[in-house]
């Protein structure tokens, strides 16, 4: 395409300006994000004040959805399950990952193999993870019950026991997440000067305290990131629940997003689901801000 315009004509100047080029470059992305990001965010907010069965015309109900949420015992239960899950999953997975990364960050025979073993679950899909753990934890034929029987422990219900199911989900998701956290920590450990690592490795008393005072500050940003990010993901737990327990047994693993999914796409309470989504969004926002404030201050005070 050759426009035969005089190079200093006004039109040519306008065409060549950064405004036009900038918008031409940004437009496809901005259009996509407006249509599938910004419009839905606003629409969802509107919807949370409506009764909407996703089929017929919605009508306004004011704050009725939010008021109903306050008095919905099923929602309260789902919040409890979600928080319990998060409070166990986040510290265990992050602290465990720090330990594993510390172990893997050294010259050791077979360390490549150990690393691979830790990383492989990262690329295993959540659905596959769920199915595999369902099999491992099968109350009748499961391998884990077989190991327990060798130890003289009676067979457990695991995912079919309302008192155990959520903890099984924790174990399963830690298995799936550990590698990701370890990769982040290994990257962070690369930034720690070698002498410091060696100092913290020297045997004898004060090993832990030297690790804590010398190496840990270097890992703070990575830790903060992992805590924030795992918390956000934990609050949005869904796939593994859907594949393994569908919220059961006896609703013991019904977490917020699963409840939201049921309300929206099984009971077609679009407005109610939108209200749940906004409450979740708000909760994530508040928790993240608190974590960043607290964690950021600790990072700041330590450097």
């Amino acid at each position: 395409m050759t426009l035969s315009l005089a190079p200093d004509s006004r039109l040519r100047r306008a065409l060549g300006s950064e405004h036009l080029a900038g918008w031409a470059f940004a437009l496809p992305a901005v259009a996509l994000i407006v249509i599938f990001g910004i419009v839905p965010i606003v629409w969802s907010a509107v919807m949370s004040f409506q009764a909407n069965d996703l089929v017929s015309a919605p009508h306004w109900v004011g704050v009725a959805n939010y008021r109903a949420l306050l008095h919905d015992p099923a929602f309260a239960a789902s919040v409890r399950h979600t928080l319990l899950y998060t409070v166990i999953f986040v510290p265990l997975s992050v602290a465990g990952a720090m330990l594993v990364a510390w172990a893997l960050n050294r010259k050791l025979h077979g360390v490549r193999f150990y690393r691979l073993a830790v990383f492989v679950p990262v690329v295993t899909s959540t659905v596959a993870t769920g199915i595999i753990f369902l099999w491992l934890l099968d109350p009748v034929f499961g391998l884990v019950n077989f190991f327990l029987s060798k130890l003289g422990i009676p067979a457990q219900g695991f995912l079919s026991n309302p008192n155990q199911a959520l903890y099984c989900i924790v174990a399963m998701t830690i298995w799936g997440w550990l590698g990701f956290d370890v990769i982040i920590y290994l990257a962070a450990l690369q930034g720690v000067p070698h002498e410091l690592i060696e100092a913290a490795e020297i045997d004898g008393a004060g090993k832990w305290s030297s690790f804590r005072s010398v190496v840990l500050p270097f890992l703070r940003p990575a830790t903060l990131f992992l805590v924030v990010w795992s918390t956000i993901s934990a609050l949005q737990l869904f796939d593994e629940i859907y594949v393994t327990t569908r919220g059961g047994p006896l609703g013991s693993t019904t977490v917020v997003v699963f409840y939201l999914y049921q309300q929206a796409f099984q009971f077609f309470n679009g407005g109610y689901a939108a209200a749940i989504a906004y409450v979740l969004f708000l909760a994530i926002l508040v928790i993240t801000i608190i974590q960043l404030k607290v964690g950021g201050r600790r990072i700041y005070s330590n450097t």
Partner: protein
Amino acid sequence: MADVSFQDVTKQFAEGTLAVKGLSLAIPDGEFMILVGPSGCGKTTALRLVAGLETATSGTITIAGRAVTHLSPRDRDIAMVFQNYALYPHMSVQRNLAFGLRQRHVPRDEVERRVAAMSAMLGLDELLRRRPAQLSGGQRQRVAMGRALVREPKAFLLDEPLSNLDAKLRVQMRAELKRIHQRLNITTIYVTHDQVEAMTLGDRLAVISGGELQQVGTPQDVYEHPANVFVAHFIGSPPMNLLRATASAGRAQAGDLSVELAHVPDGPCVLGIRPESLSLMAPDDPRPSLDFDIEVVEPLGGELLAHGFVNGRLASPDASEETPLFTGDSESRAEVTVKLDGRLRLKAGERVRLAVHAGEVYAFDAASGAALIG
């Protein structure tokens, strides 16, 4: 090839810095013009205005008689060598050279012919397949020049191109630049803060300070007839000694030096004496003279530099409204530098009497810094 001109060009950056103030400068076709001035004076900005990388806030820039003030760089047909060369790191030397021609849809065989010619001229034949990371500093410099010149641009812009080279290579490249210019005769604008480069390379030089043009002329002209105290101090190495003086009845007095300067009006003024305009006074020397206490002697072989003190007060070369010439230290001893015959055996602590060469004393207005010309 073409002439380039600035007509009352001003550039103010968004956050307020006035980098170029009312610059007017005409560069005829084929001239090697140097923009010289201290760091931060707006040289690079002036060059980028010609290139089209910045747009003038007001005024007009022309290339080959055509106003280009609002054209994009690619419509100006100029070429530029950047201070850090800015070679495309992912392309071979060959592709670096060819890139501009390709972008302008020059036919393939023509591209090859021109790249080959340029590489022969600059001695790059061995390097064509290499990437920039595999080249030495001097080689990168050559490639950067080749990339600019291969397009046969209307004007050739260079921004401190030698500043990243070591001293020896710098001298060598200086000669090469001169040779290339003589051969291609392209209008060239060369930015430097180094007054040696400015003196040796240019047909003419434009001295800039604080975004304003101070003086334009041939190197000899600017050296011999500096327009103001800033130019006088900036051009010449070591810089001109500046002393506060008082004039009355055709004579100016600075410390124990008294010179006859018929054209200087009565009142305060600044006397300028270049280090090379002083020599040891012979016993019956009739020239004006002053006492000099040697503090440090730097032998340079054929010449020597002596640093020391004379009676009198220094004047500052920064002639701006906020800092008049007579501010700064008010010691009654002024530090001066003198360039003398290298065969002299002088010692630190010695006091000698220096004579001032006839007709080599400059006088400047104490308020404006402008030269007072007889």
